[in-house]
């Protein structure tokens, strides 16, 4: 893979960097290729007498639990505890569903009872012996139906009552939040427009499908507390939830992360820790709750299905004047964050200059599994609409799609529709790069047979939420090796490697001398979790401060010893340098133990490391006016991305094949270029699944394709050959990011769907507005086009070719 020409400018400003900015091998790769990296379920053998948990789940989307008799299950030999909703704490936490349903199940898959038993087989047998009778109730799966004042079903009557929960609106009982954005004068904007375009777009429910299922081992401790080993995200957040839900003293709750096998946002909700804790407390034992893959589909969170109504007005020359949007976000049976669609809406606001903006976004509950954080969170879905609209607008105006975007893209220093000043926006460079690489303006070469080729591009930005507080600690030993301690996640994106690089750079050490210790509330300092692509930024900044704190202490001690000015001193690979010359090994600052010296006095002592501590929290958002949604700061920074694809569409089957992909990203500064490529390539793969393959299929309110066999995740064969997948960097440094770095995890998700849809239109002349672009949908659209104009069945017209 090669990198764009823009890289040289950031390289030269950072040319003195030794570790940061280099593609250092991942610090965890050795363990992982040897098979010795431990994930949560790999720890089972460490716990003799480990009890297995199984859960009885509602087969109905909405049902009253009329009878629930667990006595036969309790009597089965080997069963140690059976719990139902009555045994669960009444408190609710916004990051965790009700542990078990109480009198009603509100989605198909919600847990109704659970068993802890000596073997998995006994637990399963016990589940089969639970006597449960449901009364089916009407349910609602369609958010547009659910948001009406008199919906077919009220998903959760207590929706307004949860602490720190959703904003109950009187408009309708299933609406959990409503965000408004009002900028300029929308009526005037449309009145002055030469061209107006109106469309409805939608995305469906999909699953993160990370390879490692949710897993938690909970051990009851002799002091009445618990220790959890879990792949859930945010050890401190989990600690807080568990302590709160079960009234356990915080000092008695310890949460540990082994390696986490992917997340993509799934593990930001806590499905396993509360139930595991409940059963650990009940049995006073050690329990293991690991979801099956089926449970991951039924009872873990999903991406938010989003419906977007979008009306855009522009002048003939392409200047955007007005945009009116109604965004409906399906939260599922959820009462937690992201409930008003504001995050999704950000995808419409962060890239283009649109003086007159009228937007309503709604969070709506339906009788489906919780929906929430998923790589690209809501932005992907709204960008699907916005960029598809831009593509159609370009065609309507007879304009080059790149030129249309260039005309309207926000520049640094300008304000977006919220009123935020843009700090860094490398998006146009990204688009220009991909358009050039995919040769957008050269029609693809068509071959005989049923496959028609087409090209398309899209660009977008993903907001970063200014949230969280990250702490980091470094322990600097007398031999100049360093331990880094932090609690953000490592779900595969490489935070451990990035943190090791940062510390190695700050201490001018070879990376082998840096040891990462992560994710244990007993040992590592506070952090929230890894989300919104902010770990490099939040935790990385905290770590730099921790490193500098330690270095400051060391150099102050050295300046006394050497009688030199601190400004003239540097710490380089364990040597104190005075004006560039080595003067003192670090170890000499540490006094050895001597019976004749006061060991309690100040100064460094052998065996006792220097401790540096750092805290970073992004500047807070400024509350927005609830009537206008305007604020000078809602989000922090944005990661930008562009995607260009060449596809082939099979006119007989409707299949879409991705022949070529070109990705460009603005991540501020690539701390580890190869890892950044990996994020882009991985995001591309995931986005292909979300665009053409994946969907939740329901029958009678129940999701039925809950297996990797029929929930269609991309395999090796759905990605183009290596030579046809290129990634480029177009970094625009962020002033307060580490060395200018922003984040990159989500960037590549957000632009792929509209680029593919544009390419499909280019290939076969059909516009699709609903994801996924499944073969059947494409075939139906082709059939409809054929019936509307029989001559249109031939290949792309000249008009299309001239783009």
């Amino acid at each position, binding site marked *: 893979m090669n990198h764009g020409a823009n890289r040289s400018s950031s390289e030269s400003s950072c040319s003195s960097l030794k570790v940061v900015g280099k593609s250092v091998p991942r610090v965890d790769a050795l363990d992982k290729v040897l098979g010795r990296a431990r994930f949560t379920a790999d720890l089972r053998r460490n716990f003799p007498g480990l009890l297995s948990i199984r859960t009885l789940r509602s087969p109905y989307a909405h049902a009253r639990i009329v009878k629930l008799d667990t006595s036969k299950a309790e009597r089965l030999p080997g069963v140690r505890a059976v719990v139902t909703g009555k045994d669960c704490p009444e408190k609710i936490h916004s990051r965790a569903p009700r542990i078990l349903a109480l009198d009603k199940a509100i989605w198909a898959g919600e847990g109704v009872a659970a068993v802890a038993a000596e073997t998995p*087989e006994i637990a399963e047998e016990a589940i089969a012996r639970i006597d449960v009778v449901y009364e089916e109730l009407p349910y609602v799966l369609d958010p547009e139906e659910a948001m009406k004042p008199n919906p077919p079903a009220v998903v959760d009557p207590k929706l307004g009552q949860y602490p720190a929960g959703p904003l109950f609106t009187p408009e309708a009982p299933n609406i959990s939040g409503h965000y408004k954005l009002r900028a300029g004068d929308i009526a005037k904007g449309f009145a002055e427009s030469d061209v107006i375009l109106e469309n409805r777009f939608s995305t469906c429910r999909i699953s993160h499908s990370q390879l490692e299922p949710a897993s938690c081992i909970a051990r009851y401790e002799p002091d009445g507390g618990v220790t959890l080993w879990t792949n859930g995200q945010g050890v401190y957040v989990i600690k807080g939830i568990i302590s709160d839900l079960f009234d356990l003293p915080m000092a008695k709750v310890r949460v540990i992360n082994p390696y986490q096998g992917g997340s993509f946002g799934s593990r930001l909700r806590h499905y396993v820790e509360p139930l595991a804790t409940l059963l650990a407390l009940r049995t006073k034992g050690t329990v293991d709750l690991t979801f099956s893959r089926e449970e991951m589909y039924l009872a873990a969170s999903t991406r938010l299905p989003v419906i977007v109504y979008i009306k855009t007005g522009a002048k003939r020359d392409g200047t955007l004047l007005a945009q009116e949007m109604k965004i409906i976000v399906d939260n599922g049976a959820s009462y937690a964050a992201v409930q008003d669609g504001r995050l999704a809406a950000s995808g419409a606001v962060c890239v283009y200059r649109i003086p007159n903006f009228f937007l309503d976004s709604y969070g709506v509950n339906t009788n489906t599994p919780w929906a929430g954080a998923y790589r690209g969170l809501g932005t992907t879905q709204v960008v699907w609409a916005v960029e598809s609209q831009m593509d159609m607008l370009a065609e309507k105006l007879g304009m080059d799609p790149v030129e249309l975007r260039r005309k309207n893209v926000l520049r640094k220093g300008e304000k977006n529709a919220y009123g935020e000043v843009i700090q860094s926006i490398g998006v146009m460079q990204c688009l220009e790069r991909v358009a050039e690489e995919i040769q957008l303006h050269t029609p693809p070469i068509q071959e005989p047979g049923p496959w028609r080729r087409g090209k398309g591009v899209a660009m977008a930005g993903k907001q970063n939420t200014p949230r969280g507080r990250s702490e980091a600690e470094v322990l600097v030993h007398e031999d100049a090796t360093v331990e880094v301690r932090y609690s953000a996640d490592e779900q595969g994106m490489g935070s451990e490697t990035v943190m090791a690089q940062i510390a190695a750079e700050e201490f001018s050490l070879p990376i082998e001398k840096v040891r990462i210790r992560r994710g244990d509330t007993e040992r590592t300092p506070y952090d929230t979790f890894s989300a919104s692509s902010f770990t490099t930024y939040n935790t990385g900044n905290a770590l730099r401060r921790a490193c500098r704190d330690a270095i400051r202490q060391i150099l102050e001690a050295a300046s006394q010893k050497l009688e030199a000015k601190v400004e003239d001193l540097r710490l380089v690979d364990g040597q104190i340098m005075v004006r560039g010359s080595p003067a003192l090994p670090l170890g000499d600052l540490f006094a050895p133990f001597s019976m004749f010296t006061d060991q309690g006095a100040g100064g460094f002592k052998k065996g006792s490391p220097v401790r540096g501590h750092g805290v970073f929290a992004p500047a807070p958002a400024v509350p927005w006016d609830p009537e206008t949604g305007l604020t000078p700061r809602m989000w922090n920074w944005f990661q930008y991305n562009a995607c260009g694809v060449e596809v082939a569409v099979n006119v007989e089957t409707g299949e879409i094949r991705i022949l070529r992909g070109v990705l460009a990203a603005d991540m501020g500064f690539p701390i580890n270029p190869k890892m950044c490529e990996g994020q882009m390539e991985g995001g591309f793969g995931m986005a292909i699944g979300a665009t053409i*393959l994946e969907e939740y299929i329901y*029958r009678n309110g129940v999701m039925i394709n809950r297996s990797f*066999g*029929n929930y*269609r995740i991309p*395999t090796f*064969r759905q990605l183009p050959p290596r030579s046809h997948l290129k990634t480029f960097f177009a970094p625009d440094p962020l002033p307060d990011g580490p060395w200018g770095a922003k984040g990159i995890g989500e960037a590549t998700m957000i632009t792929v769907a509209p680029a593919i849809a544009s390419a499909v239109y280019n290939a076969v002349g059909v516009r699709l507005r609903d994801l996924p672009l499944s*073969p059947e949908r494409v075939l*139906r659209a082709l059939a409809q086009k054929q019936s509307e104009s029989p001559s249109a069945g031939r290949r792309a017209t000249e008009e299309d070719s001239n783009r």
Partner: protein
Amino acid sequence: MKFEFLEPTSIAEALSMLSHYRERAKILAGGTDLIVQMKQGVLKPDVVIHVGRIEELGGIHPESAGGLRIGTLTTMRTLEKTSLLQGPLRALGEGATQVSCPQIRNVATLGGNSCNGIPSADTVPALIALNARALIAGPKGKRSVPMENFHRGPGQTVLETDELLLEFEIPPPHPFTGSSYFKYSPRGTSELAVVGVAASITVDPKDGVCRDARIALGACAPTPLRAMGAETILLGNRLNDRLIAQAADQASREARPNPGVSVRASAWYRRAMVRVFTRHAIEVAWRRASKP
């Protein structure tokens, strides 16, 4: 899952066990279907009879004039690699090759693919198109069943609970015969077929007339089925694109996909794919028939 595990070492021993346990037992060959269904709780046998070590159930045995006998334990991998299925019997090799992925093909057996009884089994349309018969042993002796009659419904075959499938017999193909199998699914072989079509075509080289046509469809009806109407359109006529298209149309009418919500595809789409892939299957079989 929970069961008693028995491992007979001969066919006689296996039959004796089956006679004893009847519907309480399930036969384990490779396991790639049975074990999944036991894990899902769909099948809950008290007894699992593992026949995988009975040598007489393995092997591919060429017969006179190009026919074959294929033991029930023959793995998909063996069928994929053998040169015996590269000529007129190629449809079966292609069927085996398109079962799932290499790890599954290393273990999955031809017998298991039929006995599992799902309509999307990749080797069954080929067996039907090649006029294969299943040789079955039971307490009263052996019987032979044409593959087009082997399946009764989803998950159901003609096998009685005290019977064991021994092998498949494929008769010698006519000269100037070609065959093919097409599996269609949005992710290719990684998942079960949305439709599968096998065709075996015999064409007289002197006049281009189709002397024999057998077309079998998978995954678009409660059982794999022979598209006899489509065959009739071809039989006795000179093949050309228009005729083949008509046969494909007819095949899509003969398909009986489930009209309800399906995890894989709607009935409309399956019929459309039957049309597309019947055409492809006939075209390729015809081309192969012309180049023996």
